[in-house]
């Protein structure tokens, strides 16, 4: 399945100041017994959003109905650490997020997110600290220029692995890319 292309996103932020937010927080393991990737938004940050079974918490940063106009998640350092579950980006996307901004994002999560059209944006610590100070500000993420800009004029560059960027901008299919090297793979196998 090809992710939605990602070129520019202008939306509001939702800030989670905690660092080391692991994929068990993003989607608890008890929701992993699914065999499809649909409908996981309900389980996104489930234990942050609900007390017990489906009773929304009073104090939670998350709107019950989904991300709405706050499609940009801003979180503390080492976001997405822990389990390799791709259910984490599936859940965030289904909830309505399209991008995550942090000072650093865990390797496997970053790779999983990019493959599904959830843009992981790693920015310098100073700008990150400023974004963390205020939730709900308008941010423009421009993948063509690899630049974020806030409504208050804050700007920061970010880097995205060039191939993953091309996949998102131009709709390149990574599996198709590997399949195109079939003869090289066969030759490699034969030479062993």
């Amino acid at each position: 399945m090809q992710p939605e292309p990602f070129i520019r996103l202008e939306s509001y932020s939702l800030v989670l100041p905690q660092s080391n937010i692991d994929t068990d927080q993003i989607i608890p393991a008890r929701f992993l017994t699914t065999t499809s990737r649909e409908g996981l938004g309900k389980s996104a940050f489930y234990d942050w959003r609900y007390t017990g079974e489906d009773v929304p918490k009073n104090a939670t940063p998350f709107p019950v109905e989904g991300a709405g106009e706050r499609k940009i998640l801003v979180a503390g350092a080492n976001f997405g650490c822990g389990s390799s579950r791709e259910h984490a980006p599936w859940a965030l996307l289904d909830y309505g997020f399209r991008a995550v901004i942090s000072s650093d994002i865990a390797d496997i999560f970053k790779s999983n997110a990019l493959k599904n059209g959830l843009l992981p944006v790693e920015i310098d610590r100073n700008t990150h600290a400023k974004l963390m100070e205020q939730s709900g500000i308008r941010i423009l993420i421009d993948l063509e220029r690899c630049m974020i800009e806030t409504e208050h004029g804050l700007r920061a560059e970010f880097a995205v692995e060039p191939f993953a960027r091309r996949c998102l901008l131009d709709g390149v299919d990574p599996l198709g890319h590997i399949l195109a090297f079939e003869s090289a793979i066969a030759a490699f196998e034969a030479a062993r």
Partner: protein
Amino acid sequence: MTDTARPRSLFDKLWDAHVVVPESEDSPAILFIDLHLVHEVTSPQAFAMLEERGLAVRRPDLTQATLDHSTPTLPAGADGRLPYATEAAEKQVRQLEENCARHGIDLLGLDDPRRGIVHVVGPELGLTQPGKTIVCGDSHTSTHGAFGALAFGIGTTEVGHVLATQCLLQRKPKSMRIDFAGELAPGVGAKDMALAMIAQIGADGGQGYAVEFAGAAVKALSMEGRMTLCNMAIEAGARVGMVAPDETTYAYLQGREHAPRGKAWEAAVERWRALPSEPDAVFDSEVRVDAAAIRPMITFGVSPDAAAPAGGRVPIPATADEREANHYMRFTPDRPFAEMAVNRVFIGSCTNSRLSDLREAAEIMRGRRVAEGITALVVPGSQAIRRAAEAEGLDTVFLEAGAEWRLPGCSMCIAMNGDQGAPGDLVVSTSNRNFVGRQGKDVRTVLAGPATAAACAIAGHIVDPWDYLNGEAACAA
């Protein structure tokens, strides 16, 4: 291009030997995968992707599946049905059975005497070998690096890529060597080394690096210990942890089901001997850990880097995150850890469910009783470990101490098979993650090695296992 004159590390050699198409500015390398391990949780959507695109599994012969995450650890009931946590869990197991049957993949099914946790059975069957690239849709795939393999966890989309092409798109990570200098004190194990190392470099200290563990203390570890250490590399943020293969590695592998035999064995060992890092190999980062200073460790927070000696006191939190973690864990700063009462103990998981781990725990439990009110769960990593433990009477030791002896599986590590703590419980666990809610909603997890976990079960509170070991030494004297 690789400069052939440059002394290469183990990691460089493993990487270079598997590049099908080199990386460029535009594209990552296409890396060939020698062994793909599959389990029920992260594969259903990958198989569905193959179906959607009409693709076959390219190399079923290099793919091994097992059931571990969603499988019950209690036996079938009177009706012959296994006590699955949910219908969805059972469906997930059936789905993997169907997918493997359809694509000709060998599955260690529910009745297979070789079934077990994916990172336990790979080595046990001799599938895990030096020099291989090994991937699995599970972050603890780093475990297999203990054999001098390049092994790392991947996501479900990548599971689909490997099923379809036996290859992965990868950029070469930077390299880090973590040198454990000196000898471990008696009663200190690989889990204590791992926790001390993560406390030193942080939960993101290895981010972006492939880590090689080296030094006298690593060299002295058994294969089981090396697996424990590499297993925890991911908890330091590194996707890859590895140890150079040596005589310990070869002795472990020889004679195992999938290990080469006869002349092929000799040839393989000769190849493997060329793998270790050259003396002048350059790493992007070097870290030194003082092995002799390590004491039996526990964690006190909600990230594996919040670790300290079990015999010590709760550190005073310095940041808002640390204060919040303390609040969740209900640990009082500057009080002895020994004041913390324990509700449950879990001995198992791909970190610490091997025979040597069970022996270590049994050594503490032998002739003693689990404290009143504590549930202690002992879950072997595989059917083979279960049989071996029973053959030497470890099951009797656990049962007589009042612990439960279960069937193999991931169990309370990920807590998705029904084995979990009750809200508010303090669980001392030999698993790898102390994240909020990891072992059940509002459950508080303390990570420790098998000896420490067993000692906590006996004491009823957090304790330094040395209290028990020294007691024994005193009795013997």
